[in-house]
């Protein structure tokens, strides 16, 4: 996706949801000088709008009447990298994982607050529109110098194993976004380790011990039960 935003400086958001009340709420909550909204009420409508409207980010409801939301993601991913944020209900963890593995960037559990939604939209836009990797990542008391491979937590330099560092770097390249267990395993350990989830648990636990103040209440790497992990971006 090369197109970013139009001449007015507004970011273009495509909402694909069959519920009129939710479209109306999103329209009022998001339309502003910052965002311009286009709405589609079906999967097919959403697919053609994605091509015609050229959005900067897509908000997609998984429960569409005409097409499976996962199929919508796959078909958009055939030709576009536009960030897709899935809106899903709570008890369908499997759907969330399937959506993320199919190429969705993030998900929000319905019902959600506007503050949370705006944060996700902005994080997704930041990731898709950044031109080059920032050499230094900062979030709360965590600072990572990616060129020097230096990690500082609370101002103190931390020694990480190569695997822990690779994992942290993966999180930083997807900062603010949830990554599923299988995505992490594939990226860090390779496809042979797809089922080795305890390897992942052990590494996450070790990494948290080094960078979190209280590993039982992590502030940086948070767990999304049944889905994956997220590196939170803090001011």
């Amino acid at each position, binding site marked *: 996706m090369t197109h970013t935003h139009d001449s007015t400086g507004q970011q273009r958001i495509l909402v694909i949801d069959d519920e009129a009340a939710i479209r109306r709420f999103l329209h009022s909550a998001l339309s502003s000088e910052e965002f311009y909204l286009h709405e589609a009420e079906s999967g097919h409508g959403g697919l053609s709008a994605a091509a015609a409207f050229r959005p900067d980010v897509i908000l997609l409801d998984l429960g569409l009447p005409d097409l499976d939301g996962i199929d919508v993601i796959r078909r958009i991913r055939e030709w576009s990298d536009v960030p897709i944020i899935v809106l899903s209900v709570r008890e369908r963890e499997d759907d969330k994982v399937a959506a993320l593995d199919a190429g969705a960037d993030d998900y929000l559990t319905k019902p959600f607050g506007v503050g949370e939604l705006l944060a996700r939209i902005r994080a997704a836009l930041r990731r898709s529109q950044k031109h080059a990797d920032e050499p230094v990542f900062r979030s709360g008391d965590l600072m990572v110098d990616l060129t020097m491979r230096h990690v500082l937590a609370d101002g103190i330099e931390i020694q990480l194993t190569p695997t822990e560092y690779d994992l942290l770097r993966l999180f930083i390249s997807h900062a603010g976004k949830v990554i599923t267990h299988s995505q992490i395993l594939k990226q860090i350990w390779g496809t042979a380790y797809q089922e080795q989830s305890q390897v992942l648990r052990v590494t*996450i636990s070790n990494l948290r011990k080094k960078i979190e103040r209280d590993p*039982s209440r992590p502030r940086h790497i948070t*767990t999304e*039960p049944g889905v994956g992990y997220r590196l939170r971006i803090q001011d």
Partner: protein
Amino acid sequence: MKASSKATGYLFSLALVAVATIVCEFIRPYLVPTNMVMVYQLAVVIAAVKLGLRPAIATAFIGVLAFDFFFVPPRLTFSVHDKEYLVTFSGFIVIGVIISSLVAKVRKQSQEQARLSQQAEQARILQAQDNLERALLNSISHDLRTPLVSIKGAISALRDKEGDRLSSHARHELMETAYDEAERLNRFVGNLLDMSRIEAGAIRLNIEPCDIQELVGCALAAMEPRLGDRAVLVDLPAGLTLVPLDMVLLVQVLVNLLDNANKYASDHSPIEIRASVDDERLSIAVSDRGPGVSEPELARLFDKFYRIAVPERVGGTGLGLSICKGFVEAHGGKISAKNRDTGGLTIEIQLPLAGRKEET
């Protein structure tokens, strides 16, 4: 089916008469024929008790014929020399019929009684289901409507023209109320969905190695907005302990236990979470320093829609702990509650690990 059982009844009558005849043949050297009638009468009584009215009467008539044929002189004919035997025959028949009808009446009464007690049992079960359904309806109408009342009230106050005269503080309060109550409504709907999944037996476990610290961390993160400034003391096994369980369900269990403890704990007192693992099981206990629960109520704590008598501020759906029970039992585990010696309640869950624990 019915016709064949009837036929079997009459066949048994024949068999009874045959047995009586054989018995009489054995005692023939010692008794005059008139007394043999007693043996046939016994066969009629047995038929009445076991087979019913009609086979019993049939037994009486066949019995008379057999008695006449085999034992009344001249033997092996139906003719009778001594006409007094005709009195014996009619006496036998009359007594046989009377006994048969009396026994049949008793039989019918006892059958009816059995049916009545069966009906009473069914009525009792229906009543219990009815009570549960009523509890469900009460709970739904109360727990769905109460937040809706606040939400609609707050939003209408803000929406109406009159809303302009509200102070900014009042507007803020109304919005906070609407937001908190919407959260509560959302939790209640979630609870109803969980409960219906348990009731439908639709719990599919997704067992994966889970870090206990991570499990507790997720529950605490989810509870954070509700805990406010209440302290939670966490006591977990040292080092990383991975246990195989369904993390999503277990986080929900811990959230419900923490929520319960948070509701009943006295002001500013901490909640405690203690977890331990051995070769056989994972135990997690959540304790509060609230008023505890009376002994008779302890056993009912995990019943659906059961709420112990509490001050009005402690709103709950009465579903949280029964959902915990359902999720824990889906893991083959147990949940139990006991009062602490120092005051307050401890709820403990135990999950069998069956040697599947992995430590690092």
